[in-house]
């Protein structure tokens, strides 16, 4: 498989966010993901693309599915993968992220996948070390692989992104998934509607070309995709909304609400789900839901990301 197509050459050594990619580059990742999806259907689900390369999963913030997904993606590409999950507290007491990353690099690492609570940590790392850096979520900033797998899933179901109306529902303020989705979807020509209480929708999100609505029922009939964000319960204690019950009433996705939605509306969720809070179990497991397909697609997209950044180092 080649990363060159119609004279297009992938040139990013790091993947820090979708803000930094063009529509063409995003499409190229999605297309590459399609080819890797085929690998998952094979009897032997492994290709030698990254043989001899070392990938480190550095997750300074807890995660199960993203970490597993990257691990599995690296293994299917025949890379050696090391999981390293220091706790934030041990880092702040002793070694800094900078020193930790340099130590890891001294062991001859080619790609570092980093998840951290602080925005910009992947950028910082990319300045310090020579290895490729993949941002697996930096605070509320970006989560590019999640944004890509969401868009990948939408494209698979809808054929094209352009012209679609995608609602992102919930805590936009603290969501890296929302930001990566907004960058990616708007670049590919979709309209994004941020839906949630005003306390969780920053005013300036409009400047990214996003429409804002505080009334889910008003917008539900016109939208093609609903991407539901996880509600973090600690936000309630920080006065962003009065009770979880009220949040669920106003913004929870249930089958009653969905009756007014388009016939072929897609229900997405980056997980982990709070069943009964932002989404009811019957919707999560219902016919519109593509939540598990998102997880499956995540693997293909992450293989594509690892493969592409590797081609950039090789050149």
């Amino acid at each position, binding site marked *: 498989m080649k990363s060159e197509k119609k004279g297009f050459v992938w040139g990013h050594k790091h993947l820090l966010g979708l803000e930094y990619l063009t529509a063409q580059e995003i499409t190229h990742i999605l297309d590459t993901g399609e080819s890797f999806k085929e690998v998952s259907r094979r009897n032997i689900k492994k290709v030698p693309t990254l043989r001899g390369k070392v990938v480190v999963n550095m997750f300074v913030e807890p995660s199960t599915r993203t970490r597993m997904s990257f691990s599995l993606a690296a293994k299917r590409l025949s890379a050696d993968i090391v999981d390293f999950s220091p706790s934030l507290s041990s880092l702040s007491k002793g070694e800094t992220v*900078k020193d930790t990353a340099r130590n890891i690099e001294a062991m001859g690492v080619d790609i570092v996948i980093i998840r951290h609570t602080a925005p910009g940590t992947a950028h910082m790392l990319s300045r310090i070390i020579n290895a490729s850096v993949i941002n697996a979520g930096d605070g*509320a900033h970006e989560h590019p692989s999640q944004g890509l797998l969401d868009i990948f899933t939408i494209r698979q179901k809808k054929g094209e992104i352009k012209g679609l109306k995608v609602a992102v529902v919930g805590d936009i303020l603290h969501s890296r998934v929302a930001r990566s989705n907004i960058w990616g979807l708007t670049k590919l020509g979709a309209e994004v509607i941020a839906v949630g209480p005003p306390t969780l929708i920053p005013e300036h999100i409009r*400047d*990214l070309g996003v429409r804002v609505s505080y009334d889910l029922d008003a917008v539900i009939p016109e939208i093609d995709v609903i991407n539901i964000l996880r509600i973090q319960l600690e936000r309630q204690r920080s006065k962003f909304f009065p009770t979880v019950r009220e949040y669920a009433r106003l913004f929870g996705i249930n089958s009653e609400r969905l009756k007014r939605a388009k016939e072929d509306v897609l229900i997405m969720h980056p997980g982990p789900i709070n069943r009964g809070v932002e989404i009811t179990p019957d919707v999560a497991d219902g016919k519109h839901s593509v939540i598990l397909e998102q997880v499956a697609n995540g693997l293909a997209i992450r293989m594509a990301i690892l493969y592409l950044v590797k081609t950039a180092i090789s050149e």
Partner: protein
Amino acid sequence: MAWQLEWQFCIWLKPLLANNMTTLLIKNGRVIDPANKIDKVTNIFIQDGKIKSVGSQISKADRTLDTKGLIVTPGLIDMHVHLREPGKEDEETITSGVSAAINGGFTSVACMPNTDPAIDNEALAEFVYLQAKRAGKSNVFAIGAVTKGRKGEEISEMGQLYRGGAVGFSDDGESIKNSEVMRRALEYSRMFNKPIINHCEDTDLVRDGVMNEGYISTVLGLSGIPAVAEEIMVYRDITLAKLTQGRLHIAHITTKKSVELVRRAKEESINVTAEVTPHHLILTDDYIRTSNFDTNYKVNPPLRTKTDVQALREALKDGAIDAIVSDHAPHSEEEKDVEFNIAPFGMIGMESLLGVILTELVLKKVITLNRMIEALTVKPAQILGIPKGTLSVGADADITVIDLNKNWEIDPSTFKSKSRNCPFAGWKVKGKAVHTIVKGQVILP
């Protein structure tokens, strides 16, 4: 032995004699002294560390500085710096701080009391003067804490601090949250005619904020500090100043609305003054984005927007803002070289201030050279009530000589400061202090 005693006596006596007898002539410079409304090419004669005369006649002197083509001003004053001693001597000491001041053209600095322990009593204020005397370069003035331990609960022994040399009171780094405490501080300090310098910030609105709240914080996913967090406190303090007739000085003002509040208060003759930093006059929050989260742009109050920068510039021009300060806040590299969220706030500025203000504001005709000098000399001297910032006959011969045509690049590795967290690193600027003279002694170069 007798000859040894005599020899020692001479060593001790020599500097005393030299000091008493020394004369210095600064000739042919363009002398700008806003305090005396002087702006002309002339000479300054200095004797015994004092200004003896300003005028065209030339007297013989022990040393002569030919300042043809250069600007000669009263020694510059930076009324808001953090020298970190006692407590954080790895980041700055009074000794390294005064060297940085001299290198930047400042003959006087006023240091903030957010040290460890806080400068909240007479002995600690005197410690600042003692260390400054040992360092023996620029003048250092101590600002005392408003409240004991800077906790914002009980007012400090302001009378004792005043006796120890405090020229103002501030809990800088922390806002005085309790309105009654602020009220009493403004009232009590009237006895000494010294300002209460407040760092205006509603901490409930700031929460875990690390940069200006706006478009850039939204894109970067960083917690924002809204402009109103400052403005609410500026408004509260102005109304308290009106109530108490106390002297209020707003530290490092940053927003358009804050400036409007101060301007209106001045029109109502409320006793309020304000200061602004070069970074708030020149940089915006967009630098955090374009630099990919460089923590050298993390500062409190945060870098704001273009609209605010424009308003600050106009206010500096029309006098709504009185003084320019560096808010020099040294931090070690290991402290700054971490994730954006956990890096400390602050940037250094004493050695870059003159270059960036001359280049970005004076050369670009935002403010005049005379206005800049006023904001760095007579204005801060008046606010703190110190006998500096003037070339009047009989005044201390504190003088800064500036070469407006000197092109140089800001390189923090050459700074005298112990820290390197300068947001203007790599900037090419025009204009530099070439001589810094304190009490008649030419210390730079």
